[in-house]
């Protein structure tokens, strides 16, 4: 299928700020393909982000775009959706943005099951600020603030989303580029909170401090750790050690928040008549 990338972006805003080899570009292309596939009305679609390298994405997209403050994308997006439920709302942002400073908003958006699609670009690090560890930086790894190795345990963002109540949760990696758009399409079509975690890479601040000599090494790692959910069932716990499951990890039907609030409006109006 041919995709119309140009139609979805603001060509005048390129080149983007990302470093050569940054996985965010691959993830963004996947997101564009997904939006193109869904044929979303550009005037009626808001793209909301926080702060970070990943969060610069909306500026390049020809939609109603909102680059908020660090961690707050889900909360701004919730306001948009509640005030204008007919709008499509897509959030994008990094691991630090989404589940460190923004963790509270993230889990509560999941809990409400508000109809939006949240794409997390998880590069395991705070890229924009020069490589401090994030809640997903593997324990033991080096970051600019873990010079002796990271003592922190990590979050599994997808599991966090499932636990918090998101009704569509999927994961893939920047290596599996064509899967990115397929999963985001499913997320956009899903009614309720959809979280798509895209594992990607930050060669500049994470790769060079750790065991990766090149972007290719980082891509190889993404390829090696990914295990499709279907395949995982046939694998032993030992074989699954150090792997991450990819594909649709969770999907359920649960009342969506704006629809629930429409019922509140009906009850309030019935009572005040």
């Amino acid at each position, binding site marked *: 299928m041919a995709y119309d990338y140009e139609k979805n972006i603001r060509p005048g805003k390129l080149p983007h700020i990302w470093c050569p080899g940054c996985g965010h570009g691959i993830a963004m292309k996947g997101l564009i393909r997904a939006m193109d596939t869904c044929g979303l009305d*550009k005037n009626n679609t*808001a793209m909301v982000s926080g702060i970070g390298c990943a969060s610069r994405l909306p500026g390049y997209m020809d939609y*109603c775009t*909102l*680059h908020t403050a660090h961690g707050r994308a889900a909360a*701004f997006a919730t*306001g948009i959706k*509640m005030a*204008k439920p007919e709008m499509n709302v897509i959030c994008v942002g990094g691991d630090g943005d989404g589940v460190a400073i923004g963790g509270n908003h993230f889990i509560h958006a999941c809990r409400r099951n508000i109809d939006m699609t949240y794409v997390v670009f998880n590069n395991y690090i705070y890229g924009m600020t020069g490589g401090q560890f994030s809640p997903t930086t593997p324990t033991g790894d080096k970051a600019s603030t873990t010079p002796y190795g990271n003592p922190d345990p990590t979050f599994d963002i997808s599991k966090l989303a499932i636990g918090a109540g998101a009704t569509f949760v999927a994961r893939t990696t920047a290596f599996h580029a064509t899967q990115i758009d397929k999963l985001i399409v499913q997320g956009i079509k899903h009614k309720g909170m959809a979280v798509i975690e895209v594992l990607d890479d930050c060669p500049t601040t994470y790769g060079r401090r750790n065991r990766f000599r090149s972007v290719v090494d980082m891509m190889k790692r993404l390829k090696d750790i990914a295990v499709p959910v279907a395949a995982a069932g046939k694998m032993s716990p030992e074989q699954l050690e150090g792997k991450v499951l990819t594909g649709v990890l969770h999907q359920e039907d649960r009342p969506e928040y704006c629809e629930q609030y429409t019922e509140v409006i009906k009850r309030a109006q019935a009572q005040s008549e």
Partner: protein
Amino acid sequence: MAKKVALLQGNEACAHGAVYAGCTFFGGYPITPSTEVAEVMSVELPKIGGAFIQMEDEIAAMASILGGALTGAKAMTATSGPGMSLKQELLGYACIAEIPCVIINVMRGGPSTGMPTGPSQSDVLQARWGTHGDHPAIALAPSSCQEIFSETVRAFNLAEKYRMPVQVVFDEIVGHMRERIEFPEPGELEIIDRTEPTVAPEDYKPYDTQFGDVAPLAAFGSEYRYHVTGLNKAEDGFPTTKAELVDAEQRRQIRKIEDARADIESNEEYQTEDAEVIVLAYGSTARSGRYAVDRLREEGVKAGLFRPITLWPFPEKRVQELAKQTKGIIVPEMNLGQMVLEVERVVARDCAVELIGRVDGEPITPTQIMDKVKEVL
């Protein structure tokens, strides 16, 4: 037809004022002594098809109203003390991105958890300087339940007209006091809506200076698509670090309020014409001030009351004029000296300036004010 009247708490009056002003979106988080504002909004908004949402914290509440406001809704949040501190970063976001919204701060003692049920006026400088960076500020300080209603309406008008956050700050005393309220008829109080663009969508710039210092604001979900960021930006809304553009944008934002002082400022003066001493007080403290002025006049003391209803921008011209005709200005406030600093700044050496500061959770009494006046004379 007789007007609808009710016995309402200040906080309740605030919520009704918001609905009268056309507010359709409220995002909040409970905190004493502001919670009743949220409670009434949760009752009223769904009745008119608006939206009330209780968010996970005050930061989220502030974020939600900014999102809501960008879709074209008139949006409000309400909080107190610790909650107001949490909102500061996004208050700055609303300033730089020029998003109209109203923030109610029912002031309680602080810092930190302080005195949740004690009245205070200790957030008045925070209302001006709480968020980081240079930015304009509008803060209104009503002193009765009726005025809370009308000033909340005015807060929405100013927010929409000047595209910026407007704070309504009142102390716990007026927030929780009950008074008779007359509901204005529809149309009785002026209601201002934001200016929407009329240019072709491809020509739209969210900070277009060809329309003066306040550009029309399009709603998300309309035919206009644009970008909003908290970074310094050019007229088209996209980030820039070009020195001259950043400078021009920053100065324009300050200027849009400085040049509109006459429209924004609002004061009440009582017996000031021949006053030898002036009590400058706001919020519930002004009620003690007025009582004190009456008693002092009975005793033959030429006292007057100057009550700024608009705290920010501070009515500096008028205070300077008054300073030239009086011997002293007494500033009673439930803090250890905040607005008094502004009074001292604008008055310079034209008259004596005396603070009555109180932070024990008790209101400032007329007797305290009368004693201080006599001391100055």
